[in-house]
């Protein structure tokens, strides 16, 4: 009733540019929730997998939609800023893979832990940082989440351990975080992500071994977007069944373009780990629209047709939107509203990220050591000294 009055008054005041349908929207009844069928996961060493149906509430649906759209638009804005040379160095974008970061977050608690590699902007957002802080870190400003000192690949948040630049190194780190979870006895799990390219790193197999041996609550997640830089999976891996490559570790292969599938698989995997059975492996089959990084157009090793096909048939945001609209969980207009709000949020964040000053030169030497009294750091020659503060 309140919504209707507000909507009516807006129309009467003529303030908002919103169409008259706003009034109709407010008075329409949406379903509270809907049940959807999701793809069955391929299983490795598991008798049962995640459920093949799931219930999506309107509230959750709107939340997931907004989050995925925010990640999408944030990445596209980063693309734009990079081309304007306002972002420099490395910039690895995850547009196309939104169902992964949003779906994983939907399946765990904020008190769980997550670590990933360099395609990390989406996770940085889903783990709790604002678009503002993320974009300002990309543009290397003092308002960035790492005060401009880390850049694209080195963003950190509570229970989010980056953002790691060395391919594969984050996997043993994740197993170590899982060790700490088990050590502390708080039923927390660690999501340890890596790509199809990184899956061939030896240290990952070392981590599998120790995680299984010590029954660490570690969910190994291979985000398989079919290409490790410019090398397709068939050209890099003798076995492309990434969900099986944990060998003695049970695994599941998940449709990474369907956020509900990702969510259910994550809940399943987290429950498995929390029960003390040890690690589990999830392969998320997904796709990136951009090339490997901003310096890769992304079409020398794959076809534009392939990219277009994924966009038109499997786009994660489109899939969620269609489901919600067709089940009366939301209206097209309502979702368009969210799009507008998200665009504004991103635009404001980009403004900030462009206008915020760079970190002060005096702080170049800061943060070498933790918890130490200040000391001097040498600059480019013996007369240039920087103060170092913890």
């Amino acid at each position, binding site marked *: 009733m309140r919504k209707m009055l507000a909507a009516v008054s807006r129309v009467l005041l003529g303030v908002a540019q919103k169409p008259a349908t706003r009034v109709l929207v407010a008075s329409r009844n949406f379903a509270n929730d809907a049940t959807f069928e999701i793809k069955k996961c391929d299983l490795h060493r598991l008798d049962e997998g995640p459920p093949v149906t799931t219930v999506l509430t309107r509230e959750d649906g709107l939340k997931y939609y907004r989050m995925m759209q925010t990640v999408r638009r944030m990445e596209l804005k980063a693309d734009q800023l990079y081309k304007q040379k306002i972002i420099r160095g490395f910039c690895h974008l995850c547009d196309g893979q939104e169902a992964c970061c949003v779906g994983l977050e939907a399946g765990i608690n904020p008190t769980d832990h997550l670590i990933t590699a360099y395609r990390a902007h989406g996770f940085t957002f889903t783990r709790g940082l604002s678009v503002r802080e993320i974009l300002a870190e990309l543009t290397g400003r003092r308002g960035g989440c790492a005060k401009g000192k880390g850049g694209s690949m080195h963003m950190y948040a509570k229970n989010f351990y980056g953002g790691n630049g060395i391919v594969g*190194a984050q996997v043993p780190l994740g197993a170590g975080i899982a060790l*700490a979870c088990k050590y502390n006895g708080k039923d927390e799990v660690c999501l340890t992500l890596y790509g199809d390219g990184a899956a061939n790193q030896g240290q990952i197999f070392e981590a599998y071994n120790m995680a299984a041996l010590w029954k660490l609550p570690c969910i190994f997640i291979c985000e398989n977007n079919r290409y490790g830089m410019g090398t397709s999976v068939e050209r890099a891996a003798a076995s492309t069944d990434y969900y099986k490559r944990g060998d003695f570790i049970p695994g599941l292969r998940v449709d990474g373009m369907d956020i509900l599938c990702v969510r259910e698989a994550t809940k399943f995997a987290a429950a498995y780990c929390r029960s003390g059975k040890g690690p589990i492996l999830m392969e998320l089959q997904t796709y990136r629209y951009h090339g490997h990084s901003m310096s890769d157009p992304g079409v020398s090793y794959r076809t534009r047709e392939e990219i277009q096909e994924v966009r038109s048939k499997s786009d994660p945001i489109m899939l969620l939107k269609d489901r919600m609209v067709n089940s009366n969980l939301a209206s097209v207009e309502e979702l368009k509203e969210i799009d507008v709000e998200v665009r504004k949020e991103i635009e404001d964040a980009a403004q900030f990220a462009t206008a915020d000053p760079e970190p002060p030169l005096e702080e170049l030497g800061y943060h070498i050591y933790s918890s130490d009294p200040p000391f001097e750091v040498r600059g480019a020659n013996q007369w240039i000294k920087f103060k170092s503060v913890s």
Partner: protein
Amino acid sequence: MDEELERDEKVFLLGEEVAQYDGAYKVSRGLWKKYGDKRIIDTPISEMGFAGIAVGAAMAGLRPICEFMTFNFSMQAIDQVINSAAKTYYMSAGLQPVPIVFRGPNGASAGVAAQHSQCFAAWYGHCPGLKVVSPWNSEDAKGLIKSAIRDNNPVVMLENELMYGVSFELPAEAQSKDFLIPIGKAKIERQGTHITVVAHSRPVGHCLEAATVLSKEGIECEVINMRTIRPMDIDAIEASVMKTNHLVTVEGGWPQFGVGAEICARIMEGPAFNFLDAPAVRVTGADVPMPYAKILEDHSVPQVKDIIFAIKKTLNI
């Protein structure tokens, strides 16, 4: 380590053979029996993996001691030490500390040949974000490991296999459970007036032997035990050189880009340069991969006679 494990339940030890074998060099003897599987963890032979696991555990708030059976094997894991541990506090602008200790024997042993004899003081000492310590005697070993464990930063502790078996008298204050040696401070082991001799780890003992011999000839050496490679206590070295006007550095590692090279460069840049009456001189390991045959090995590491020779050359005697 026992004292620190008892003091703080977040401290734990992992590495190859540290638990049921009592430590490859018996350094962790008795710990597994006392603390069990949760705190003393035997790892498979997976340096890159377990070093990464240790760093991750430190990021998540525990205080791991990661043992490398020798630092030669740390090369397998060096990416985790440098890129995951050393640089993270800086890259995160102070959000993510990494309170970890990497420890194990470093440098030459006896007859173990080239792949097992390298000194890593220069390699690790090169990197901002790391602290690197190098104990000589028992007091150093105790005070430095305790400080390293209590430090909230990644600390590399370069022990020495040949020193494990050498006993020292432990002074009264060093026997306390809270005896700590500050990281970043050198110690003057022997006062002298004619020349400053700076060393770290086992060579400190050789320098003291050389000093004893030279004392009979009326030459009084001031012997400085660096104790810490990074951050280096250059102030102590400078103060001493400004007093003695002569400098010899001694280390077990290779000469090129070594610890002595860094000391000499810094002396040139600082106030002590104008007090030098002769160029600073370095005594180092020979510039070869460590040979096996005893006669060759003996001549590939700095001996007391080499130190004496260098000191006399510097003093023009």
